């Protein structure tokens, strides 16, 4: 199966990725090859097979009580923020 420019534009939009003009033909080609590779799965007989939900048999994701266990460390975490002010993350204006 071959993907088109329109497919790549739509995928890039869903993934919130800005692509350059030079990147687009590269991804049309390589994603088409990948989709062809994963197309091999079509031949597998999977009727009645339950999709795997955990790599360990019989295990499910452990849950924990809904209790606060971590202290307030937002000041430390915000040191990695590209732009923060008064304890808030700054982004471009959203509401006009």
């Amino acid at each position, binding site marked *: 199966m071959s993907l088109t420019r329109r497919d790549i534009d739509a995928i890039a939009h869903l993934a919130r*990725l*800005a692509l350059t003009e030079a990147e687009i033909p590269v991804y049309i080609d390589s994603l088409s090859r990948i989709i062809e590779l994963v197309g091999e799965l079509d031949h597998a007989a999977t009727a009645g097979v*339950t999709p795997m939900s955990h790599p*360990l048999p019989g295990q499910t994701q452990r849950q924990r009580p809904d209790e606060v266990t971590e202290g307030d460390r937002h000041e430390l975490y915000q040191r990695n923020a590209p732009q923060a002010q008064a304890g808030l993350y700054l982004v471009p204006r959203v509401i006009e």
Partner: protein
Amino acid sequence: MHSATVAQLSAGLRERKFSATELARDLLARIARAQPALNAFISIESEAALAAAAEADRRLAAGGAPPLTGVPIAHKDLFCAAGSRTTCGSKMLSNFISPYDATVVARLRAAGVVTLGKTNMDEFAMGSSNENSHFGPVRNPWDPARVPGGSSGGSAAAVAARLVPAATGTDTGGSIRQPAALCGITGIKPTYGRVSRYGMVAFASSLDQAGVLARSAEDAALLLGAMAGFDPRDSTSVDAPVPDYQASLDQPLAGLRVGLLKEFFDKGLDPAVEVCLRTALEVLRAQGAVLREVSLPNLPLSVPTYYVVAPAECSSNLARFDGVRYGHRCEKPRDLRDLYERSRGEGFGAEVKRRIMTGTYVLSAGYYDAYYLKAQRVRALIADDFRRAFSEVDVLISPTTPTPAFAIGAKTDDPVTMYLNDIYTIGANLAGLPALSVPCGFVGGLPVGMQIIGGHFSEARLLSVAHRYQRETDWHQRAPEAYR
């Protein structure tokens, strides 16, 4: 000192034959000398390492220090270590300072190790050659024109070149075992849930697992013992006791039922690699192992299954990089959408974008059933194949890779060709099984690895098979000429 194993270094430090500070200085100097040729490190942390070594010397002098006190290691640069940079090989995180320790880092620190730095890797652990790092490719110490494998390529090259006796790594589709094989060292990917993933940068959460790259099974056992165990901070961590891996290393091989993975001794395998494997199998047979061929009919579907599941999980995990809370942010965003799209477009490299887009595609409306759900069904079939096999044999053996290390640049044009490198290693990740790679010979002067896969939580068994093999062979003691 640089050629000593972890076990020998630990003994030497206790007997005060050398100090932790002398050891750290010696290896830091080696790292600095090798860096221009190999590019195995992203961050060399000399100052912090020497402070930790001085502290180790104080603890050793005081007595009662844990066995790994003063032993130098390196961490793959996707483990957070409080106060140090964690880039994950990406421009996106090139300025990210970890606010806390990964559990693996904290446990090894508590066990006394001295971290010399953070190793280079494929960006976000996506790659099989280490050519996808924002910080440049790593070179194979056996031949600088060749790749070291990936994604833990920096860790593998550093251990092979005797820059550190051991290093941490992570394995989502072969990222510990494949570089271990291509660099001639020992690498173990434990059972899913054996080692905490807290503080690791996530790639594909149903597959990611942390492990060790070292020069022998004994050293891997020592390190894994210190890393493994239940962690309430990782919801996939399994609450099961950790056996004493070192104590069971000498377990005899008599009667061990070894299955040879029929599907992996096939036409894709380099005949010279097969010769190394067959010779290695005779070493096991001579010690009483019983060999038979085992077929896992769904295993050839591992690669297509993986390239649906892993990108799907990656596209979801990497959605967190939005240019707002941490990571790269584009200049002068016009609006919020522009901020997201350009920050991500600029911050991620080509392969990471390819995986995010593949994952976005297979999860998108109308394709979810055809791709993602289908892949999870095939994954269940593959896991069933393994389950059946382990009712008949104790371990499964195959080559780790179809060929020895390939040339830098040889497979960068076609991602599918690159993906097929992991054909022998991906199955263990899909089924959550432990697996290791040990050096078992050379082809054209390049190392070749033997993969040993076991049932869930059989790390002790795998390490003992590898150890028994390494007692009879010296492939794991060979060092690249330039780094002896």
